[in-house]
């Protein structure tokens, strides 16, 4: 039983780490590059405007898609590693 608990505990910690890492990227793309850091990135030109504008209207959405699929793939793998899959 204690074995099961430590195993489950480790699985949950790994999940929390993965979520935290993903959310850092999530926030960097949207609140960072697209909003707060836009003035800093204004030197990088792209299609008649700057990188911050691109992140706001396109880049962040692409980052969100990659993150969601990465998380699903990684977690489904973790489920199996820890023997917790359905």
């Amino acid at each position: 039983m204690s074995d099961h608990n430590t195993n489950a505990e480790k699985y949950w910690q790994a999940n929390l780490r993965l979520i935290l890492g993903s959310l850092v990227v999530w926030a960097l793309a949207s609140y960072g590059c697209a909003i707060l850091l836009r003035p800093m990135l204004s030197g990088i030109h792209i299609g008649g405007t700057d990188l911050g504008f691109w992140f706001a209207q396109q880049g962040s959405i692409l980052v969100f898609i990659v993150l969601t699929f990465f998380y699903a793939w990684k977690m489904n793998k973790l489920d199996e590693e820890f023997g917790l899959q359905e």
Partner: protein
Amino acid sequence: MDQFTINLLFVGGSFALYFGIAFWARAGSTKEFYVAGGGVHPVLNGMATAADWMSAASFISMAGLIAAGGYANSTFLMGWTGGYVLLAMLLAPYLRKFGKFTVPDFIGDRFYSKTARLVAVACLITASVTYVIGQMTGAGVAFSRFLEVDKSTGLVIAAVVVFFYAVLGGMKGITYTQVAQYVVLIIAYTIPAVFISLQLTDTFIPAVGLFSTHTESGLPLLQKLDEVVRELGFRDYTADVDNKLNMVLFTLSLMIGTAGLPHVIIRFFTVPKVADARWSAGWALIFIALLYLTAPAVASMARLNLLTTIYPSGPTEQPIEYAERPDWVQTWETTGLIKFEDKNGDGRVQFYNDVPAFQDEATARGWEGNELVVNRDILVLANPEIANLPGWVIGLIAAGGLAAALSTAAGLLLAISSAISHDLIKGSINPNISDKGELKAARISMFVAIVVATYLGMNPPGFAAQVVALAFGIAAASIFPALMMGIFSKRVNSVGAISGMLAGLGSTLVYIFLFLGWFFIPGTASFANTPDNWLFGISPLSFGAIGAVINFVVAFTVSSMTEEPPKEIQDLVESVRYPQGAGEAVDH
């Protein structure tokens, strides 16, 4: 064949398809009615989620808002997609593992309290009804355009159609209908966008066209647009925003609101496994992104097209004469959504930003005020006409806009009616109600919800997308924090969760009512809704994020001062964290 007949054919045809599917997949049991029997493939569920999600606000209003606001309104793009990242990681898999029918089901069990469940029902109904208003307004606009009636009549027609449609379906019918509606709406949205992108930039993909060269001028499209709007006294399209705090909070409110909207969450109860719930969130986001990556292109191109139509020789030259205005302006004038008033009596259409800063320039050009008022909500619907696209594209847009409004309305009505029949009636008032009685109660509550939504749709507090934004504030401040704490903390107890939800919801509602009128009754606002009056420059639409923080803080503080939850509740929290042994969604 005239345009009216074409529209009727497209809309009628798509309706026949939905009714057919809804009839084929009609719900016989409560399980089919609430969670579609629990066996929907993750890709199909992703598609249905996308249709459920992309509402009249996304389809009809969003591009118009971005066209008007430019960079500043990118918040809608990020806010309405970024929430899926939160949903995929923080809520969907665990709630699927929990395996019940509704969101209040989880809150009631996790916080071992009927009161918590009732508070959740109240939050859910408030958020969903507010959201339905936006759908009704949007559907009203679409109907009024293609049936050529006034807005209120359009609204009533929309209400009648949605009612029959949602009552027949249940979740099972709604799911498969939404798959068809997704296909209709994405085709309808993409085809005109591709045409317009080809016309303006020679680029096949609109999202690429947005950052390409405007063929006619040889300048990058966005630079060209900036120059044109500047000549007419508007802010640069790509101009940065001064109030970054408000922009961040507004985006955050939309994101956590998205993750906390019950009609989206319950979609993840319909897939067979926890792993499917994770994939399904990704698929939903892909299907949503197909429209959301096109929308900013549509916005900028339509804005440029509109200004080029009015100033055919460029913004520094004379605008067109009213007598020579294009047909589409005339048809939209009959709906009252485009208004023209010849203020300087020269017979021409002066369309510019009538602000003090532009006053001198306007006077020098002999202009005595902006003469054209274009409702932002018509931009997507009028887009094909503005770009002179063939009649069948216009019919397609009408069908697509209605698909978007109706699929979301149906999803919301399901969330509302399941909260009333399952959580309120079966959960509290009459636990012994039969399966058949519960189904009947669900259908009656749908009727009441739609009557309320129609009344409020006729007296809306803002544009369709902004009305929807209010629902987000409420979902963000009440439901999302409660669900997240229920999964990620074993310490938060029933008193903590209830006081948190009430504090979050209460503070958000008060802040919104202060500026937009108490209970949205016109004329009852305590302060004018202007940035000067806002607390720290936070708009009422951005307050949801603050409400969520208040909810978290109150819930943790109160919980830490009171007893920890009983052992079996802590075990319940353990069990939702691990996918093993999920089984299918079950009744109590």
